[in-house]
């Protein structure tokens, strides 16, 4: 049985969403301009987008690029970050590179990348990859740096080689931090996915959005914003579930540790 307070806490996100839609609805009715459709109009346009085969193909193509960019991003960034965290030489080689690229909006690189790679999947996936990589490298780096030296010594005494220590001690003990980076990376993947399609207008969810904007179909524009937002919430929630399962050990089962010598 959930208590009243718990029930309110778990329903809070839903209530906030409904509240925002309510404010939107009232605001749009008050302003009454073409470029700001009401929440109901926008919501009504959602099923027609999702029901349209071409739109669906576009959205799925976007998600596929995002999944590839995210996956390759993790495969490269996690090992790189861990090595930076454990080796001063690797860190001092890659750190300046990261410092330079961190503040650059990855979408700003899009025109150059398009020039080299064209407007196809590769360019867009590359931008997503870049967007994902930085937070994941950074958090993996921090996580690996914080690994207790004595824990590695304990492993070494048991006979673990340097590579085994990296995979079987540094990786799991940095995992909570790595997953924090991955969560940020996932949201950034979604953002760079849309912005890349905004610049390289050829296919994808971003393309639908900006084409509709060009043609003055504002309810479609807002419906796409709702769809992208919902995808973001859904992906983030799913990732959070996965994260909780993977790092269950880092959260205590009881409020206080057992007292027993």
């Amino acid at each position, binding site marked *: 049985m959930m208590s009243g307070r718990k029930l309110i806490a778990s329903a809070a996100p839903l209530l906030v969403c409904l509240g925002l839609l309510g404010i939107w609805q009232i605001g749009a009715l008050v302003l009454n301009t073409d470029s700001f459709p009401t929440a109901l109009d926008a919501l009504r346009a959602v099923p027609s987008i999702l029901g349209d085969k071409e739109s669906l193909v576009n959205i799925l193509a976007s998600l596929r690029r995002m999944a590839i960019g995210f996956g390759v991003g993790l495969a490269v960034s996690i090992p790189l970050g861990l090595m930076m965290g454990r080796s001063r030489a690797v860190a001092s080689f890659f750190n300046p590179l990261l410092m330079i690229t961190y503040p650059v909006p990855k979408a700003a690189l899009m025109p150059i990348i398009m020039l080299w790679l064209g407007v196809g999947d590769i360019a867009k996936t590359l931008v997503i990859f870049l967007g994902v990589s930085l937070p994941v490298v950074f958090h993996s780096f921090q996580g690996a740096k914080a690994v207790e030296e*004595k824990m590695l*010594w*304990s492993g070494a005494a048991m*006979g673990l080689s340097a590579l085994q220590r990296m995979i079987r001690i540094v990786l799991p*003990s940095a995992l909570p931090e790595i997953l924090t980076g991955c969560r940020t990376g996932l949201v950034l993947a979604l953002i760079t996915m849309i912005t890349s399609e905004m610049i390289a207008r050829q296919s994808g969810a971003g393309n639908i959005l900006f084409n509709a904007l060009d043609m003055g179909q504002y309810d479609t524009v807002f419906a796409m914003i709702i769809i992208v937002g919902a995808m973001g919430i859904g992906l983030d929630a799913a990732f959070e579930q996965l994260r909780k399962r993977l790092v269950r*050990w880092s959260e205590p*089962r*009881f409020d206080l*540790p057992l007292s027993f*010598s």
Partner: protein
Amino acid sequence: MIEIDGVSQVFQTSGRQSHLALSNISLTVDDGAFVSILGPSGCGKSTLLYIVGGFVTPSQGVARMKGKAITGPGPDRGPVFQEFALFPWKSVLGNVMYGPRQQGVKPAEAEAQSRRLIEMVGLKGFEDFYPKELSGGMKQRVALARTLAYHPAVLLMDEPFGALDAHTRTRLQNDLLNIWERDRKTVLFVTHSVEEAVFLSDKVIVMTRSPGRIKEVVDIDLPRPRRRAELLLDPHYQKYVVDIEGMIDDTSEDELHP
């Protein structure tokens, strides 16, 4: 037998200055002996232990284990650290099984051995708990079991009870002695508590502070098995404690009047 032969350790501190942490240490530890290294904080006693563990390479001199120079860590020398250093993503059982599994012991056998060890250190019923869920004393019991599990010839204990409250510390000292009585492993035990060193050891090595040198080696000739209640009343025990405390006092006076 462990031989430490002319070991010195220099650390580079900030500003390119070098700090001599250990100066020309030579000592031997016999098989099956319980030897404590006693000294004020900053005397390099832990560093000496890390050198024997193979975690730190000495700037000068050599440490040998059974006549062979120590070049790195190995399962013949099992460390137990003040910080516990348990693997937090593994349960108590998972931690204790880690060493034997790494040594190639079959899972079922490793588990059976580990469960016996967990019972021996008094943690039966906590096999499936994660380290985060345990108190400091329990964590150190797990750490001891984890190290015993891969059968090191030597236990290297680095102020293992230093982070524990007085009551827990006493219980763990008693339990450690009981466990040690069963197979009499060689133990090298770093501490800054005189009572702890005298209560546990066959031999106490008293060190001076910066640079760390051996000031005195005291053989503790008290009968075993030792019982705390009897020992505290034993004038021999009391004399050892007072004498050794005096040696440490002298050390700090040397520093005041160089």
